[in-house]
């Protein structure tokens, strides 16, 4: 009887679901039909105002009131439906009234622009689908009986990372809070393979590297692995050891990703609860600024760019059972990985390819939105572009070679989410068209978008606002307006070229390892700046020509107003991009993070005195105190301090670390650690990277919602500030060049004209 009741409930539930799906589809079809209805512009304006008002009200309530999950879901899907209607209406209006009509050039470029908009609109709708039901998981608990816990192998693949970076990663892995006999840390060195050691060009460095890393592994307690060949790069490196491993699960962390202590305790439980769970992915979090954040100086007060995908999109995909493995900070069931043939090697994005293969077998994936690793991002613009281009090429390769739409075993939702993720990487072409389209009209008078500002306000602006409000609604804490535009523009020119070559030859592409831990000892202009400068000149010229056109062709003003506003926005984006192109000096050896509030330091002095004080921040190389907290002069301190002990709330200390006073400012005194053993460094690695809650708190500090106008003004301020920095840099370089020419000229004449003069550098306020 009970079975019958359950069965009836299940059937009635399914029936209601079918009705709901039918209603939803009917609504979408009706929305399409209504969008197509050619009601007059005045009525369309009223609709626009009402719909946008509803969206704004929702956003207002979301920001001001703590809403329940059900209400938030209702708001979210309402937002999606309204946005879809506005998108449909906009595209239909574009087709009917705004494309071409002024000669072949107008037709051609008008259609191109429209195709770009169709792509953007499709991507937006797919994005709505992906993010409509995000799944927020909590860590799965482990049984009390430790013997039931699976054994784990932690793999750290490496190719050219420095030993000091690897040491921190290995120590972090070894610090993981898990029974020691149930996990092993492996360093997979691809920089010391037999091939490389035999290659005359690399033999010396490779052998030295192999020896160095073997010693490192021996000292920290990790296992060193290398192989004969370097085939299939990182994927091949992992596959090479798969069969030799014995653990049930394997963790893959990049060489610069340091795991937190609770990594395994938070993730392993999912495998015990779900036999078909193949992979548990956690977000990638970073300790250092990427070049955009660094050069635009937005690292401290704006959210990280990567979090949109690493947290929100992955959560959305997890809702559809398709969150995927992203190469690091993931734990995989080894048996299932072996079943699909190990890490896939056909494309440059071996991780996603592997996840797709696992999903196609019907295995499950889990995304736990809790930062469990802290890593390094590329430091230079070219490194960033290189990394992103590799991802883009991998995505295009998968679209061409293993298109999810045709992969059997994937559910339709998984196919859609995969397609959404991969199709994002077509953005360089859309960005190119968007950046250059206004110039076609402003410079050449080619009508690519035949609309007045009034018409755009009725049809275009509501669409734009609806998608922006949705973005703000769903992930406003981590993605501010203009951020995506700048990141995309930084990558666009080179990515467009590289992607084109991938389109032509999707087969094997070289795997370029992203350089990490680079030190920039001076300001310099990135090599990617030349092509961006071209865009800058084109857009600036277009604006100037547009001003001329305003007076010379007053008849074009209705269209000109709209196009000029568009071009001004482009100018802001390209200006910010140009600011990013000036690489700023960065000499920091290791990155500081704020210390936990419940720990303090005890400074051991030569005379046996112990000075207690709060810790401001801590890094692998040292820690900082507030000056006022220490009742000694700097000189006294420098003479007396010999070691430091970090003490937690309960008064426990992991050990004493030798240290010296390295730097002192008006507010902060910096101590540099003088390690004498690996154990000491392990303590500090634990302090810096071990606590995932502190890591969350650190990351949370950068996340916040801001208003649309505030975000624009913030970016404008940063851009102008960056342009000023550019100007100073140019003056400085020009000054040096002039002195250099004078020196050359004087040396030719045999006169030391510069005698007594020195190269002066202008002060730069940073």
């Amino acid at each position, binding site marked *: 009887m009970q079975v019958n009741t359950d069965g009836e409930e299940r059937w009635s*539930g399914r029936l*209601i*679901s079918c*009705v*709901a*799906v039918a*209603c*939803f589809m*009917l*609504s*979408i079809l*009706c*929305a399409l039909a*209504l969008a197509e*209805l*050619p*009601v*007059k*512009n*005045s*009525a*369309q304006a*009223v*609709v626009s105002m*009402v*719909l946008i008002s*509803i969206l704004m009200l929702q956003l207002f309530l979301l920001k001001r009131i703590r809403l329940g*999950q*059900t209400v938030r*879901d*209702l708001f*979210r*899907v*309402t937002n*999606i*439906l*309204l946005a879809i*209607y506005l998108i449909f209406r906009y595209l239909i*209006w574009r087709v*009917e*009234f705004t494309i071409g009509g002024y000669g072949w050039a107008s037709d051609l470029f008008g259609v191109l622009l429209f195709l770009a908009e169709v792509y953007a609109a499709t991507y937006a709708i797919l994005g709505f689908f992906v993010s*409509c*039901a995000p*799944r927020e998981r*909590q860590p799965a608990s482990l049984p009390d009986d430790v013997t039931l816990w699976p054994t784990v192998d932690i793999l750290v693949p490496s190719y050219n990372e420095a030993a000091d970076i690897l040491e921190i990663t290995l120590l972090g892995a070894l610090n993981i809070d898990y029974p020691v006999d149930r996990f092993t840390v492996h360093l997979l060195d691809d920089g010391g393979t037999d091939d490389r050691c035999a290659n005359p060009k690399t033999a010396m460095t490779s052998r030295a590297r192999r020896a160095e890393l073997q010693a490192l592994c021996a000292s920290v307690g990790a296992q060193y692995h290398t192989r004969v060949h370097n085939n299939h790069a990182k994927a091949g490196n992992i596959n090479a050891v798969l069969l030799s491993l014995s653990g049930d699960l394997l963790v893959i962390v990049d060489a610069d990703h340091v795991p937190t202590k609770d990594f395994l305790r938070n993730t392993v439980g999912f495998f015990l609860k779900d036999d078909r769970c193949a992979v548990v992915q956690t977000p990638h979090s970073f300790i250092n600024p990427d070049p955009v954040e660094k050069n635009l100086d937005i690292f401290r007060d704006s959210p990280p760019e990567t979090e949109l995908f690493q947290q929100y999109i992955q959560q959305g995909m997890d*809702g559809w059972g398709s969150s995927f493995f992203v190469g690091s900070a993931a734990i995989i069931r080894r048996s299932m990985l072996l079943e699909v043939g190990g890490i896939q090697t056909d494309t440059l994005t071996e991780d996603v390819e592997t996840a797709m293969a696992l999903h196609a077998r019907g295995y499950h994936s889990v995304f736990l939105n809790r930062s469990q690793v802290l890593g390094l991002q590329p430091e230079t613009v070219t490194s960033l572009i290189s990394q992103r281009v590799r991802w883009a090429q991998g995505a295009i390769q998968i679209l061409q070679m293993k298109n999810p739409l045709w992969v059997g075993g994937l559910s339709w939702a998984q196919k859609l989410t995969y397609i959404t993720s991969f199709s994002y990487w077509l953005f360089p072409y859309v960005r190119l068209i968007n950046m250059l389209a206004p110039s076609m009209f402003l410079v050449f008078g080619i009508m690519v978008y035949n609309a007045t500002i009034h*018409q755009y306000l009725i049809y275009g602006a509501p669409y734009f606002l609806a998608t922006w409000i949705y973005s703000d609604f769903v992930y406003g804490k981590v993605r501010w307006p203009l951020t995506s535009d700048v990141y995309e523009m930084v990558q666009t020119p080179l990515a467009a070229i590289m992607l084109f070559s991938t389109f032509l030859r999707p087969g094997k592409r070289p795997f370029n390892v992203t350089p990490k831990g680079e030190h920039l000892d001076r300001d310099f202009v990135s090599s990617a700046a030349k092509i961006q400068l071209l865009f800058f000149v084109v857009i600036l010229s277009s604006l100037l020509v547009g001003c001329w056109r305003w007076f010379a*062709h*007053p*008849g*074009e003003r209705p269209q000109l107003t709209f196009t000029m506003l568009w071009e001004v926005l482009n100018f802001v984006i390209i200006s910010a991009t140009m600011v990013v192109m000036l690489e700023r000096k960065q000499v920091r050896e290791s990155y500081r993070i704020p210390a936990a509030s419940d720990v303090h330091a005890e400074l051991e002095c030569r005379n046996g005195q112990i000075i207690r004080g709060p810790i401001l921040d801590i890094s692998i190389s040292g820690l900082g105190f507030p000056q006022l907290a220490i009742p000694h002069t700097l000189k006294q301190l420098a003479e007396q301090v010999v070691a430091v002990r970090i003490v937690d709330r309960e008064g426990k200390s992991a050990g004493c670390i030798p240290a010296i006073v390295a730097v002192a400012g008006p507010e902060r005194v910096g101590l540099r650690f003088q390690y004498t053993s690996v154990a000491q460094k392990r303590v500090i690695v634990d302090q810096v990277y071990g606590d995932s809650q502190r890591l969350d708190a650190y990351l949370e500090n950068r996340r916040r919602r801001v208003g649309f106008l505030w975000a624009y003004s913030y970016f404008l301020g940063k851009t102008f500030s960056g342009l000023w920095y550019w100007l100073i840099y140019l003056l400085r370089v020009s000054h040096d060049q002039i002195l250099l020419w004078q020196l050359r000229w004087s040396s030719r004449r045999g006169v030391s004209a510069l005698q007594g003069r020195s190269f002066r550098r202008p002060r730069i306020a940073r």
Partner: protein
Amino acid sequence: MIVHPRPGNRFSAYLLGCLALWATVPAWSDDSATRNISVAQLSNSTHFVVLNRKHPTFRFQWVIPPVEETKDATLAVQYFAGPNTPTGTELIVSLNGKDVGAVREHRNYPQGEFTVALAAGILHAGPQVVTIRLRPPSRVGAQRPSAWTQIDAYQSILRYQSAIERQAHLSFADVKAILQESDSMISLPLILRGPVNSTMLQAAQAAVAGVALWVHQPVAVQVEEGHLSSQEKVAPLVLMLGQRSVFHNLSKVGRHGPELLLRHSGKDTREEQLILTGDNPSQILAAARAFAQNRQDLPLDRHWFPNADPIGVGDTVASARLVPQSVHAPAQVIIRNVTNVFSDAGGSSSVVSFSFWLPGGLFADRQKEMHLRLNLDVAPFVTPENHPLVTILANGNWISQWKLGLGVGHYVTQIPFSSLVAGSNEIVLRVRGGRVKVLPGSSIQLPQTHTYALLPDLRLFARTGFPLVTSGKADHLTFIYFNASPQYLSAGLTLFSKMAQVSRSSLTAARAAQHYEGVNGDRVFIGAPSEMPISVQSDSPMRFTASNGIYWKSPTNGKSAIWNSARASGAQAFLMESAGGSGGKYWNISFLIPKSRSPIDAARALVDVDNWSRLSGDIAWMDRHGRYHSTMLGRHEIYGDRNTPAFWIYFFSVRPLWWVALVLIVLLLGSTSAAWLVRRKRRGWKEEV
């Protein structure tokens, strides 16, 4: 002819004029009269007209009616030359583009008068254009910017002998010129001889429409039964309708059928008579219809015997667009009658304008556009390198602006349909830096439209006669005269003439009746408020009782409207538009004048441009000063076919809140379903945990 004036020596100028007049004396006839008209009267100008370098030309015109013979025309010009005017500067008088006289100015004799003879050979019936032009001396450097000459428009006089031509010269082609003698409103006496029945009234309507379509001015009809009363003001044209038997010596013996005759009244005035007759009322109606429908192709004679079944070539403009269907396919209108105004004095701009007419109730969805295809011949004012700039204006609204190429070229521009109005639309091409000529082949391409309108709307009715005139012939229109007295007939026919004008249709199928029973379709009621039957007032926002009581709705859109009442009203006349039943397909116009008021005056005031152009809403009433006031008392209804998708497009366009509601319902259905699915999904996840 160059005249050299002397200081204060007007004698020589007069002498010259007198000599010219003397030379024409033998040609005078007994019924001739001397006419003296000041230039100020002719040109509507101020007292003094200043000619200078920027404005060197002064132009005015006078009209010679076709029935008038003009002799011995002279123009005496009084002028004053400015102190900086160089000696040798000439004032040149041209008539119809030909120089007919000039005077050379002298700085020592700034004030002068000269008279030129306007040669009879150059004069012809119709408008005569006189130009007075200031020409600086030809020698180099003599042209001074500060030079000017003043023309005294009050003292400058045009004189001529006017003689009425005999009717032997009359033809139907002269009707237009005869009617154009009136300036603001044409008074049209209409004499109905014989019994007045529906057919005769219908014939009268057709004849009045025929006359009204000749002219732009409003036509005030004054019906007389029998003979024109002698005390009435003399009008240029008198319409006479009656059976052949009541007219004497009208046609040759043995002729039967419809007949039209244009003849002189026989009085010592310029009054002409247009007689429409036949053997019976039907033939009179046929004659009237022939006159109305063939006004563009009337014979060059004063006597016409059209067939009983008139050949119809009229209504070309209206019927081309006013087809009785709900969807109008894209139509092309050829641009004709282009007006060019060159401001070549400053060498800066010129204006080209043309008009076209749109029927009422046209609706084009979304942002449909009208394509204006122009073949233009462009010539620059200054140097060939300069490309003139053209600005397009539609009904005074800025549409677009672009540079023109030089020479002949084809241009296409779009004009939003929303900038067009029902009725007459004016397109203006304002060209800076050049002159433009619109060449043949230029056209207007209208988009596909549908017939929908929010009614009642007296503004729309005033502009195009819509919705009572939806086809060129007004097949469903009936004028119902509750009161067949000449006064009310005059009012009705005056309104009918205006409807013909605004709809640009002869309305030849429009019927006339004296009872409303059994009359369906669109109806115009003419009579006193107390004569309005209660049964036809059911849809009216204002109702009248037989005892002069008035009830009117409060101007609310709610269903529970409040009715107000009054015993007497200060209104002199009422014009109302209301639904006529049949689901909004037919509409009524009621033109009601209390018996204590003058229907003729009420009708004249109604069709006066000032009042007619201000009509709006669903009711208008005339105050004691002859001004009409309008308001909206009832509710708007949608006119048009409700069984097509276009209806919904129109409905949502004019009722945007319904559109919003529909969109929201559809989207909320989807969002509720999706939210339910998400909730179910979350419940499943919880169960997993």
